[in-house]
């Protein structure tokens, strides 16, 4: 599965790449919302991992844009400063999950697995009706 990680911090991108690739995911890294949108036009991703606080366009903007064009792609929101407000907003944007930085590899993988599983369940429920 292809996962797109969006964060303005190099170390976060690298960390995610290390963890996810070790677990067999195909990982794409972009440092901004715009780059992310460009990348999404080229590739089809199974999951987005997005940081909220970024210069220029923030994670919320990106989520809105993504939901417009690719409403089915699940998005996991990351934040180093998780306030109730940001979490609430993320939920409103129909983020699939929320993860607070810092996290351990296990924590990240657990959340990603949960999301994927939920997504699969969702699809399998929906498929008969298609």
């Amino acid at each position, binding site marked *: 599965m292809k996962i797109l990680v969006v964060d303005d911090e190099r170390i*976060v991108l*690298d*960390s995610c790449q290390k963890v996810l690739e*070790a677990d067999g995911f195909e990982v794409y890294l972009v440092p901004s919302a715009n780059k992310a949108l460009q990348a999404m036009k080229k590739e089809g991703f199974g999951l987005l991992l997005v940081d909220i606080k970024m210069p220029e366009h923030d994670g919320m903007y990106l989520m809105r844009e993504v939901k417009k064009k690719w409403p089915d792609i699940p998005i996991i929101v990351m934040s*180093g*400063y998780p306030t109730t407000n940001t979490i609430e907003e993320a939920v409103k944007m129909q983020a699939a999950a929320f993860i607070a930085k*810092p996290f*351990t*590899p296990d924590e*990240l993988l657990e959340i990603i697995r949960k999301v994927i599983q939920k997504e699969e369940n969702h699809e399998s429920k929906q498929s008969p009706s298609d």
Partner: protein
Amino acid sequence: MFYSTRSKLIASFLVVSFLVGAVSLFIGGQLLYKAVLSEATNRVRLDLNSAREIYLTRIKQLKCPLSITTLGFGFLSALKRHDAPELAIRLRRLAQQAELDFAGIVTKEGTTLCRMGPDSIPKEGIQAPNPIANLALKRRVATSGTVVLSEEFLSAEDPELADRARIQLLPTPRAAPRAEKEELSGMALAAAVPVFDKGDLLGVIYGGILLNRSQTIVDTVRDTVFQQEIYKGRSIGTATIFFKDLRISTNVLTPDGKRAIGTRVSKEVREHVLGKGKKWTDRAFVVSDWYITAYEPIEDIFGERVGMLYVGVLEAKYADMRTKALSVLVLIIVAGMLLAVGLGYILEKKIMSPVHRLIKAGHQVSEGSLTPEIGPISKGEIGVLQNTFQDMVAAMGRRRAAAENRLLQSEKQASVGRLAAGVAHEINNPLTGVLTYTHMLLRRKDIGDDIRSDLQTIVESTERVRKIVKGLLDFSRQTKLDQEPTEVNRLVRSTISVMENQALVKGVSIEFNPGENLPMLTLDRNQFQSMLLNIIINALDATEPGGSIRVSTGVSLSASNAGKKGVEIAIADTGCGIPQEDLDKLFDPFFSTKEVGQGTGLGLSVSFGIVQRHGGTIRVQSEVGRGSTFTIWLPVDERGGEHENIGS
């Protein structure tokens, strides 16, 4: 404002004392005057009696020498012989001894045989009538009394006597008008004794004293009755004998010091005494002064009112007595008023000085001082006022301290919050890197145990950092409360149950005393629970094995927000207690006495934030070595209606 109280007090004192003084002065003056007047009038009345006695005694004294003369050796035979020269000698001797002004002998036919005067043996012819002798002849008994003597009689007796009797009428204000300019007749005291020889009336011997210009009687009255009492150079007492309304014998003096012979009595007195024959006692203006006077009529031997006897006491003495008494009274009143002023001043000082001090203290308080000088506490209401004032200031101080404390706390929280947010955000990204890379390294199978243990240490330290940052974030977060109606007791019980195991392990007992009939509270259960947990954990940390933690709930009124109803949750431990100097810092973020790595010092500051956001307060009471009690007070939301927590 101060002065008006003082002047009001003094003025009211003054008014009262003035009124009392004026009334007592008026009444006292009046009473005093009446008393003095009646006293004086009584005295004068008595004096008049004495004067009358003297007057009558003098009359009686006339008869005696006359009678004795008739008994004298050879008198009878001389009279029988009508031996005028012999009798005249005897008469002269008699007159000299008895101090008579006139004396004579009348034959039984009524003609004067002889008299003591210069024309001692009258020639035959018409004689002036002799009222006293005639009366004695008629009555044939010794007769005495007052008689009016005509000018002719007097000049026949002795021309000098007639001269003495002649009195010029002086113009007197208020006297009844009289036509004549002169009084020629005289008034006399006279006696006549009939002389018998074996039952045959031989004649009458008569004698008397002319009252006109005589001084003896009036002066005797003055000297015996009034005992020559002198007042301001004048004798107090005066006596006068009036002939009709004319002063003929007196020691009342005119302003130039002469006896006031020739002046007359006022018309009023004349009518009353001479006219109606009554006594008169009253205040009267006599010649030139006011006197307290008494008059009574004098009747002559025929029972006619011919004159008056008067005594009078100078009113000036009594008036002065009254003035003296009144001035003493005035003095007392003035002294009273002065006393009132003084008393008012002192009282005002005594009463108002604590009030002034209170006013000053009030100014001090309004200028920010919380330790105003009130001065010594007085007794009574003022003292109550002072105590109340002090209590009020103390309460203000407490409330202000609490408010300042809250303000400081929330300022601290806000600034630390901003800092924490920035720091957390910056730190959490690299922390993600550290955590990820160390964990990835730990996954590798090709590392030695020593490296693995080092990596483990990195992970642990990083976890600590993460915890601290998380705590910072919790602390700084002004998260919205997710409130719902909550049964406090249930929430507390469930929180305690979380801790029960841990406490059991440590050997500390936890008990819960739920209060009854607690109202429902609207709370963010998660935040509230974490707050409670933190405080209970702190208590558990502070308490040695064998100690206890008691949690209790109850309805209570706010300590700082007077009268506001709320619910209190108290967590009391028997732990180590908190030193006084730490109490202030307790709620500061990062204040911890625990070992490094054990406590971040954020627990209580976060708890404080949570309670504060619920509108409540946290109080701490602690004694080192005995334990601490944390009391959380939460307001009851009265708008939302209270739900009684039945069956808790």
